[in-house]
């Protein structure tokens, strides 16, 4: 790990194909800055992404990375972290990727408390398939597949995380660059599953959950004096149906990550040239 890492070292020379003004630009910049500020460099960082606009992030960042299949980024991240506790793992996804097809994996990655940072670019719409309802779309949000709105309540990903036993729950806004970066940084530094839901507006297909909407309504929990270690307070904020919040909602103080709970400390990439020295004992077990 070198001390002179700049956030631009995490930038690839590929120009993003996100729409001009997309929230994902700000989300990614904050992730890169947070990684650099926490002392990581591209050679010890692994970024996993799924499918969708958010999934493109591995292309625009420079690090070890895998761009996988739809909704399965968290299991890939889990595998990387278990094999390599020495590597910083960051998983990026979207609201469709994470809360629809990948919802099952989300619940289980949360409850395992795998030591990685999960950043969800939540724009409350399916962007890359050109504007269908997502799991976080409002119940009256009209789209090509839901002309009268989905007529079902949106998923509350923060509540889902809380109910699954999350040790770190936060929300940020792509446009509030400094706060977003600080929040992701705190998630990286957290020992365990650091979950950040990022409001990342889709300027092309979502004319409801816009930059202006979030600027006007967003309440910063830090300014409100919220204590993230207070579970009851966190519950109240997370289940509040009226307001939109940014900040760290919940943080378990004595969080022990999955690999430590299971005594995994070794780098699994190094193995002997042949069978382990005492391998014949494995055979003798069958006498």
């Amino acid at each position, binding site marked *: 790990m070198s001390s002179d890492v700049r956030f631009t070292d995490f930038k*690839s*020379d*590929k120009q993003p194909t996100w729409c001009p003004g997309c929230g994902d630009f700000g989300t990614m910049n904050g992730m890169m800055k947070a990684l650099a500020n926490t002392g990581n460099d*591209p*050679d*010890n*960082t*692994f*970024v*996993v992404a799924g499918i969708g606009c958010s999934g493109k992030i*591995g*292309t625009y960042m*420079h*690090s*070890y*990375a*895998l*761009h*996988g*299949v739809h909704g*399965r980024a*968290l*299991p*890939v*991240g*889990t*595998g*990387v*972290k*278990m*094999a*390599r506790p*020495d*590597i910083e793992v960051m998983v990026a996804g979207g609201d469709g990727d994470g809360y629809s097809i990948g919802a*099952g*994996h989300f*619940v*289980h990655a949360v409850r395992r408390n795998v030591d990685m940072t999960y950043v969800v670019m939540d724009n409350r719409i399916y962007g890359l398939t050109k504007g269908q309802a997502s799991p976080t779309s409002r119940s009256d949000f009209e789209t090509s597949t839901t002309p009268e709105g989905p007529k079902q309540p949106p998923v509350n990903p923060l509540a889902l995380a809380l109910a699954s036993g999350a040790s770190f729950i936060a929300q940020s806004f792509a446009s509030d660059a400094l706060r977003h970066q600080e929040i992701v940084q705190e998630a990286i530094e957290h020992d365990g599953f650091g979950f950040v839901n990022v409001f990342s507006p889709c300027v092309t297909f979502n004319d409801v959950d816009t930059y202006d909407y979030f600027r006007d309504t967003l309440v910063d929990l830090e300014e409100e004096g919220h204590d993230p270690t207070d579970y009851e307070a966190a519950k109240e904020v997370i289940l509040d149906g009226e307001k939109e919040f940014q900040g760290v909602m919940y943080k378990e103080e004595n969080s022990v990550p999955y*690999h430590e709970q*299971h*005594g*995994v*400390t*070794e*780098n*699994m*990439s190094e*193995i*002997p*040239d*042949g*069978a*382990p020295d005492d*391998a*014949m004992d*494995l*055979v*003798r077990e*069958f*006498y």
Partner: protein
Amino acid sequence: MAEDLNWAIGGEAGDGIDSTGKIFAQALSRAGRHVFTSKDFASRIRGGYTAYKIRTAVDDVQSVVDRLDILVALTQRTIDENLDELHEGSAIIYDGERSWEAEIPDEMTAVDVPLKSLAEDAGGAIMRNVVALGAACEITGFDVEYLDESLEKRFGGKGSKIVENNKQAARLGQEYVQENYDLDHLGYDLETTDEDYVLLNGNEAIGMGAIAAGCRFYAGYPITPATSIMEYLTGRIEDYGGHVVQAEDELSAINMALGAARGGARSMTATSGAGIDLMTETFGLVATSETPLVIADVQRSGPSTGMPTKQEQGDLNMALYGGHGEVPRFVVAPTSITECFWKTIEAFNLAEKYQTPVFLVSDLAMSVTEQTFPPEAFDMDEVEIDRGKLVDEDEVDEWLDAQGRFRAHAVTDDGVSPRAIPGATDGAHMSTGLEHDELGRRTEDEDERVQQVDKRNRKVETAKEQESWEYREFGNSDADNLVISWGSNEGALVEALDYLEEDDIDVRVLSVPYIFPRPDLSDEIEAADETIVVECNATGQFADVIEHDVLTRVKRINKYTGVRFKADELAEEITQKLTEEVPA
């Protein structure tokens, strides 16, 4: 054929059938006798017929036969289910004090032993099966002391009192038969030897092979009959710095395994039937991201949930062709329990040498069958590890482009690119399921697309040249009759040769452990008058690929009852098939 004994215990699931059978099998193994076991079980936890069968001889035994000599029947159904395998000389041990009245055919020897009462005398009714084992020893003249070690192994953890009580139970069973029956061991003389054997099943061999090969990460979801691989690794892999994750589903399992492999670990998942369907989504990603991964499929009866606890070899097409688009891969199918060990090691080497998915295809019969082997059959000194083009920090430099970017998917003559794992300085790169350039970045450029597809397929061509894709051969190599088989049918076929020889039928058997790539059998088939392909499925999936290879029609023996081939049955089928016309 040397004298062999076929023994079984049957009752309801939950009656301790499995552990009782295992205790006896281990005792026979410790006495230097060969053992081959098979299980008949239903897909339920309690209730339902279940049986554990043992065939034992001084010579090697590799199959079950249609004959049962001693049956411990805890229920009437046990007798009914096995009636066609019982014969005049069979002895049936049962408990006449139980509430059912056993209906035993007149010509058989009924051995009524008060199993429960004697067990209670020894310390508890729970030991009634052990009483039956003692009785079985007396009937066959097998020294009851051989049971002691097995009982210690089984119950040692529960304290010496429990072990002593069990030993006593066995002796009470033995003495009861001695005092009440004059059977003169029914003519059996169970010879013992000084050989030291190990007794294990195919799934245990796969798990052991994985650890020997340096596998450190396993993710899976419980499914019959693959679960025991996960159970074996759990509790052992940790000793080597590894870890097993029970994932939330198969999609997660294969993606976790893929993640660990990206991290540089030798990594594996295993499943069966419906589970392999779910994993199929990720096959292509493993191939395009050029990730070394071993995916084991322990086949069971399909389609859909089919018969979860029954034998079949119906997933061959899935292993060969599963996944959308065209997925380069290797498909290796062990043909015996020792091969389950060695082919698992080979699978890990192939996966890393060619950075591609390797399917390790086994089947239910192999996974639940326990068999004896000399320990040298698993000689760990013979294990070789080849990690392929895993580059370290110094070697990474050779593969950087002019801008200093690592060419993780470099187009090479042999189709294999350099592989850098996290932590290697300057090796950072992305891999993706999207078509990509040498740097791993998305492309739809026609030339680059073709280059990458060709590059990945070239791995298979390279491997065809560099690796040996051989078959194993049995019988008479000059015979005009050729029988080809894959998977667990080998043992039954080898023994069927003895039966065929008695009828003066000469057969050459080829047992093929490689499905893709596979050996070219053109010459062998051309040299033969008759070719028969034997497999446990209805449509002849392996016969299809062989016909495709050699452009010649072959005869087929297909069994899809859910039960594995038996040696004597197979001999009969082959005899019959040889006289049939070749299908048009």
